[in-house]
């Protein structure tokens, strides 16, 4: 059993409990480097100089062990290695590699820690070191939390530099020329006489040399790739239909499958009648799976059609059947018994809110589906005691463990081939679809099987972003925000998600209050309390996780208080902000948007700020109030991720995250009836389309902060900046998402 399998079941602690867990098993015992997984499959003349660099006769392959979900991580991680290893951009080949503990993510757990990103105290830094050690110990190879770049920033450059050093040593041995007289250029070692020795030709000799423990990294001033616009490695393939997603895999003798599982999640199946389906053209087999039924056919469409013909007798959902009933559970969760955290409690909120003139509000946010455009799918083949899986996943080691459990094979006989993903937004942090595919493979061994979900199956079997409510009270005095008491109630993403990975959690779930408790504002009386609603529908991480809701909740009411104080929102946010990088981001967005200038008739400007995943982001949205509805005209974004490694991708990620945040705020919700999601396809879950997309101006602010990821942090401020702009344009304060329940959009 792999590390994850055995260790996880021995109940080590993850998520919110890393401090206690770290103390329990000690940080320093885990300093040893994990085994390089590339060494086990090497052929003659091949070298694996680090876990990230494989060299053979045909050239260099860089292992980029994070899932590329569209965020371009393969290109950025490859650039980190290529920069130090010195290879030409067009020669870069990447491979997601085999699942391995060596590719642990030391940063992913940080967002779950009860220390704010703005805290640089000794205690906070120690806590983060412990978090890294826990990840390393568990071998947590996870993509998420905008952590791939900060995690890889040093270690993959070091990997490139160490590999280059070994190649130089190999060339020195072969030529007898002292190493310091040798240079490298574009994948070759160059001798003083101008001889060119390709890295590939040195592979066999390099494989015998122990990589150095210490290397010197290039200064940023000497960078060739990093910090400059890069051409994504996959851009030509993705512009010509030649990129291979899991859904595109084809193999000789392949059959096609789909599933129907109970859309009342977890309700199970009492029985089914597949007599009509079994007779349909092209159907090969109908097989039971956990909570549903699988159909194998000779093409995907015939499998889809046959699945529709099956009469299923579903069990009832183990949660309240309707959205209204679920919101009642949320509304009744603001109790001492369900209090989960009070991580911010400054001044004396109760005393400050004794007086008349207390402002109160209640806010609501819905469940949201991930709905990546590529529906869940996996190709599986169980043959001769070996299971192969081709799919995209953010949790490769867990996928292997699940597949081993379902198939009954040893994990060493489970071979996962990781692929790029047609979006994910957190969806592929779950492995339910792999479990189903392996169940089908077990029932029909010996053949490659491509299992594809219909869009309807995908929409009705998501692990959505949880619904939630907030109750706020506040007070203003002398044109200033004086008191802010925020209570947030929602189910725990961490408990739900980590629970499915067979790992326990304890302590508060930071996700319930993320993006609210940790904001860098100094309000005299300021309190944030989280309430844990019992799990209703199983929930999971959705782009920007807890901050996706709390950005709206925290900013929305703060804007109300600022309005009540009768002062300018940007000026008041800057006055309240104690964190200099955050203040600079606010100032920048003010300058970009010409905040304070006349915005025009029937128009409005709104601002919001959220610090999440360590990244302060400020956004200004401009809207027009037209006879047809609200039109979103323009968005300005300033963000500080420290150093930007690829300005083009940075801009693309920010724009995409803003459109994600706006689109879901405008018209998306997942509601439930009879325990089943009512939005089954994109007709009822649209997001923004091109004609609705605003222009988005982006500025990176580098305050010398530690390097951070950008995939998620621009999401949380988008919805509240839009709602605040609508208020500015119309006088209408909307406290519930999606906004189109209360106002029309163009």
């Amino acid at each position: 059993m792999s590390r994850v399998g055995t260790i996880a079941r021995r109940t080590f602690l993850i998520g919110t409990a890393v401090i206690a867990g770290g103390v329990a098993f000690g940080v320093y015992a885990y300093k040893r480097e994990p085994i390089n997984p590339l060494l086990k499959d090497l052929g003659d003349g091949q070298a694996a100089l680090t876990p990230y660099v494989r060299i053979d006769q045909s050239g260099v392959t860089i292992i980029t062990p994070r899932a590329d979900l569209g965020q371009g991580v393969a290109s950025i991680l490859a650039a980190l290695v290529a920069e130090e290893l010195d290879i030409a951009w067009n020669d870069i080949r990447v491979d997601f590699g085999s699942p391995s503990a060596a590719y642990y993510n030391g940063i992913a757990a940080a967002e779950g820690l009860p220390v704010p990103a703005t805290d640089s105290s000794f205690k906070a830094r120690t806590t983060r070191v412990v978090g890294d050690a826990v990840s390393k110990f568990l071998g947590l190879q996870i993509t998420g939390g905008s952590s791939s770049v900060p995690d890889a920033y040093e270690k993959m450059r070091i990997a490139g530099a160490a590999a280059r050093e070994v190649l130089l040593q190999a060339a020195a041995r072969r030529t007898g020329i002292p190493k310091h007289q040798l240079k490298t250029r574009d994948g070759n070692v160059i001798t003083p006489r101008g001889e060119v020795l390709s890295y590939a030709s040195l592979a066999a000799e390099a494989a015998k040399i122990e990589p150095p423990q210490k290397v010197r990294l290039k200064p940023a001033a000497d960078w060739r790739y990093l910090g400059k616009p890069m051409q994504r490695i996959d851009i030509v393939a993705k512009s010509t239909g030649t990129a291979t997603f899991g859904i595109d895999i084809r193999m000789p003798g392949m059959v096609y499958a789909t599933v129907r599982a109970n859309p009342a999640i977890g309700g199970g199946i009492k029985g089914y009648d597949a007599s009509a389906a079994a007779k349909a053209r092209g159907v090969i087999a109908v097989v039971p799976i956990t909570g549903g039924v699988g159909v194998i056919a000779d093409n995907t469409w015939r499998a889809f059609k046959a699945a529709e013909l099956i009469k299923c007798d579903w069990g009832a959902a183990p949660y309240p059947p309707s959205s209204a009933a679920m919101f009642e559970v949320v509304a009744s969760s603001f109790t001492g018994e369900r209090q989960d955290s009070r991580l911010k409690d400054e001044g004396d909120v109760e005393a400050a809110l004794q007086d008349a003139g207390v402002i109160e509000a209640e806010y609501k946010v819905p469940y949201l589906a991930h709905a990546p455009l590529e529906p869940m799918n996996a190709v599986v083949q169980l043959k001769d005691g070996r299971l192969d899986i081709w799919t995209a996943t953010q949790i490769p080691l867990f996928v292997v463990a699940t597949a081993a459990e379902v198939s009954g094979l040893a994990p060493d006989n489970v071979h996962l081939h990781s692929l790029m993903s047609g979006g994910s937004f957190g969806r592929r942090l779950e492995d339910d679809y792999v479990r189903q595919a392996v169940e089908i493979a077990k029932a029909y061994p010996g053949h490659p099987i491509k299992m594809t979900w219909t869009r309807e199956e995908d929409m009705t079997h998501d692990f959505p972003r949880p619904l939630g409510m907030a109750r706020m009270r506040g007070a203003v005095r002398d044109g200033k925000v004086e008191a802010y008491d925020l209570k947030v109630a929602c189910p725990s993403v961490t408990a739900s998600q980590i629970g499915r990975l067979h790992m326990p959690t304890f302590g508060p779930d930071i996700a319930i209050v993320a993006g609210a408790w940790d904001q860098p504002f100094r309000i005299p009386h300021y309190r944030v309390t989280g309430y844990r609603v019992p799990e209703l529908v199983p929930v999971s991480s959705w782009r920007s996780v807890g901050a996706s809701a709390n950005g709206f909740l925290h900013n929305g009411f703060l804007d109300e208080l600022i309005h009540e104080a009768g002062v300018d929102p940007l000026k008041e946010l800057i006055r309240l902000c104690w964190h200099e990088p955050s203040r600079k981001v606010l100032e920048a967005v003010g300058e970009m948007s010409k905040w304070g200038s006349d915005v025009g008739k029937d128009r409005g400007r709104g601002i919001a700020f959220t610090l999440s995943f360590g990244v302060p982001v400020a956004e200004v949205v401009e809207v027009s109030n037209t006879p047809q509805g609200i039109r979103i005209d323009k968005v300005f974004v300033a963000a500080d991720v420290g150093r930007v490694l690829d300005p083009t991708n940075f801009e693309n990620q920010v724009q995409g995250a803003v459109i994600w945040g706006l689109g879901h705020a405008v018209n998306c919700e997942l509601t439930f009836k009879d325990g089943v999601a009512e939005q089954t396809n994109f007709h009822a879950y649209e997001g923004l389309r091109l004609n609705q997309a605003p222009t988005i101006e982006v500025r990176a602010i580098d305050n010398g902060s530690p390097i951070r990821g950008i995939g998620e942090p621009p999401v949380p401020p988008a919805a509240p900046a839009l709602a605040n702009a609508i208020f500015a344009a119309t006088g209408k304060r909307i406290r519930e998402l999606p906004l189109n329940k209360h106002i029309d959009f163009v």
Partner: protein
Amino acid sequence: MRLIVNGKTHEVDVEDEMPLLWVLRDVLGVTGPKYGCGIAMCGACTVHVGGEPVRSCSLPVGDVKADVITIEGLGTPAALHAVQKAWVAHQAAQCGYCQSGQIMSAAALLSANDNPSDDDIDQAMSGNLCRCGTYPRIRAAIRAAARELKGRPT
């Protein structure tokens, strides 16, 4: 039945009501067009039939009466179409899953109208969803491709 795809003639033995998308993907192995929704709401499956952009997920193959061009027939990595060149230059794709359909919609627009206004672009492209939100770059790429197709400097 006979189907001409990217200039190649195929005989296929399938139900008339089978959507063109699945004939392309699962029978002919042409996987550039993608399945996203199956109800013509996302546009990932967009191909040209007789030069017109259609949502192949909702077009029964029995109703296909003209030549089919998919993204593979528009251009190749070695010989990019002007729209594809612009997509590369503007780094339009993120996950890339919708982009085959986006590119086919854009190519159809530009073959009918080499100087599209913003409204024309909105009209032609609003049937193609992008969950990653690459719309600003798609818009810029279409403008650049239009300039190139008109022989103006980009």
